[in-house]
């Protein structure tokens, strides 16, 4: 049974420079106890999805489609219901732990806050729970009385994880949880997340630009480009035998040490991700694609079957319908 189901989600930001489509028709599914990795470069719309799941985007943003979180139709909820669902059905580990905590409130109060707000227990039990949570993320209970500035970057991110666990939500969205951290600390936090996920049977939507991180954590991967999912499938399979040319390029950006194919020859895509206000026609990736054929500039690819439990939005995959001028 799925904890999160996103259907045909589109998000358009209203800015002074015009409307900016950030997400353009995305379907996602996260099952209980499953880790879905959502990967893509900056501006591909992945963080927008995180915001949309708890409806945290600016009020004027235009959101269409359907988001079902733990049985709640998020986009249709009244403000009161929405508040009740936030953090209890789904919680978020935000990108910059530095700024995601109130600098003048003690750690303990900030962890207890959602428990108390949702009336899950009284003050005393909430404090006990906060202490337990701290231990779970590998910090001593006495840290409850500290202020955020007294912690290191890694510790802050652990606190954010403890905070996300506070109301035992069905889903945790981790939005670039390790990006700002140093290599060694990043590995520690990843290890912690992996352990917690395994022990508590958490459903996790893990969002990052670093594909190599996902391979270690995620069960399934969804790769986004220009507001759309372009490839989906089992994590190992997607990383090791990518079907979409974009995924291939992304995977190549994370070389395996010792693999002589990478030695002395850095490879990457030419060009840059497209401006969301000027997305190329046809396949949005075609101007940068190494396997581009003439049809790519006109045919809009859908997620076609690309193998067992694999989908990819590319005219080259086996499941793509026969198109005029496309030879395989």
């Amino acid at each position, binding site marked *: 049974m799925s904890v999160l189901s996103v259907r045909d989600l589109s998000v358009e930001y209203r800015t002074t420079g015009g409307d900016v489509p950030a997400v353009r028709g995305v379907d996602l599914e996260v099952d209980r106890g499953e880790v879905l990795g959502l990967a893509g470069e900056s501006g591909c719309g992945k963080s927008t999805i995180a915001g949309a799941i*708890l409806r*945290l985007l600016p009020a004027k943003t235009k959101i269409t489609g359907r988001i079902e979180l733990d049985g709640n139709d998020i986009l249709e909820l009244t403000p009161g219901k929405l*508040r*009740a*669902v*936030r*953090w*209890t059905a789904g*919680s*978020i580990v*935000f990108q*910059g732990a530095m*700024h*995601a*905590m*109130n*600098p*003048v*409130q003690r750690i303990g109060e900030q962890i207890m*806050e*959602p428990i108390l*707000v*949702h009336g899950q227990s009284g003050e005393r039990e909430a404090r006990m729970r906060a202490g337990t949570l701290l231990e779970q993320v590998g910090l001593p209970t006495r840290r409850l009385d500290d*202020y955020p*500035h*007294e912690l290191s970057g890694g510790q802050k991110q652990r606190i954010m994880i403890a*905070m996300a666990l506070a109301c035992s939500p069905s889903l945790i969205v981790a939005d670039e949880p390790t990006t700002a951290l140093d290599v060694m600390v990043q590995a520690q936090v990843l290890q912690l997340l992996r352990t917690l996920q395994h022990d508590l049977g958490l459903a996790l939507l893990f969002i990052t630009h670093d594909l190599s991180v996902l391979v270690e954590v995620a069960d399934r991967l969804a790769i986004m480009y220009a507001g759309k999912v372009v490839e989906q499938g089992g994590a190992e399979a997607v990383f090791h035998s990518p079907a979409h040319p974009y995924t291939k390029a992304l995977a190549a950006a994370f070389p395996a040490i010792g693999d002589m194919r990478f030695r002395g020859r850095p490879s990457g895509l030419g060009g840059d991700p497209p401006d969301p206000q000027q997305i190329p026609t046809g396949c949005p990736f075609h101007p940068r694609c190494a396997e581009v054929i003439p049809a790519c500039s006109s045919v809009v690819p859908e997620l076609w079957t690309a193998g067992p439990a694999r989908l990819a939005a590319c005219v080259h995959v086996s499941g793509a319908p026969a198109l005029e001028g496309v030879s395989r």
Partner: protein
Amino acid sequence: MGRKYLARKTLHALATLAFVLAFNFFLFRVMPGDPVRLLARGAATHMTPQRIAEIEHEQGLDRPLPQQFVVYAKNTLTGQFGISFVTNESVTSVIGRAIWPTVLLVGSATLISTFFGLWAGIKGAWGRGSLFDTTSLFGSLVLYSAPEGWLGMILLIIFVGTFHWFPAGQMSSNTGQTGIANVLDVLSHLFLPCMTLVLGYIGEYTIIMRSSLLEVMGEDFVMTARAKGVPDRLVRRSHAVPNALLPTLTLVFYSFGFILGGSVIVEAVYSWPGLGQLTYRAIQDLDYNVIQAVFLLFSLAVIAFNLAADITYGYLDPRVREA
């Protein structure tokens, strides 16, 4: 609070005080126009050249500068500011009489304008773009643009000249009443000058609080609180406002010098018998000893207030408190 922080801020205040003392000394002695001439200009109408020479000697102005400085420092630190050329009283006692009315006026005006300014700023920022926000922002800008003295005159023309609701000036009606009646009498005299200062400064406080809160509302931790399902009213009370209040309070404390300055002209308009009116008279009569003493006193008050601001800040902000 960290003792180091406290010590540093206190040292800083003391250093500022020392600077003001030295500055005051040199301002009157080294700037163009020697003190003798200044004294003569102010007191010529009352004094013979002989008397001027006497005063010059009394003030030690005929001695070399370093020696003068020692005398000046000693006198200042022991609270001796010489005599007022106009009334021939000691400046200390003239000031002593005038200090309390000013404390009452400036104190009440500061409290009221801070309270309502912050309230309006919070309400405006939280409902950004609402009718309340646009009116209060525009009103704040207009009030901010009005000179306090003129504002006082307008209130006087409206409420005293036209409606006769309040007494025209002074601090009491001098009818010798006591008890509650006296308090009410003083309050009715206080109302208009106090309102003038409140109107003069409330706009600034509103604008400061508003922009400070707007800035905090864009911070990530406010988003975190909303994501946690915390109701808006609580997000505002326990996350947004406490963080926005910190910089605002400091700015409000720092602007104390301005409200104090504003009191000079407002007291003159309302003949409120405080330091402001004293200063105003002293300017008209070029009573330098009084001007000099008031300058020191005002500076001292502002330095003390800034120290208080720093200490409050240090107490409220854990990042400073536990450093």
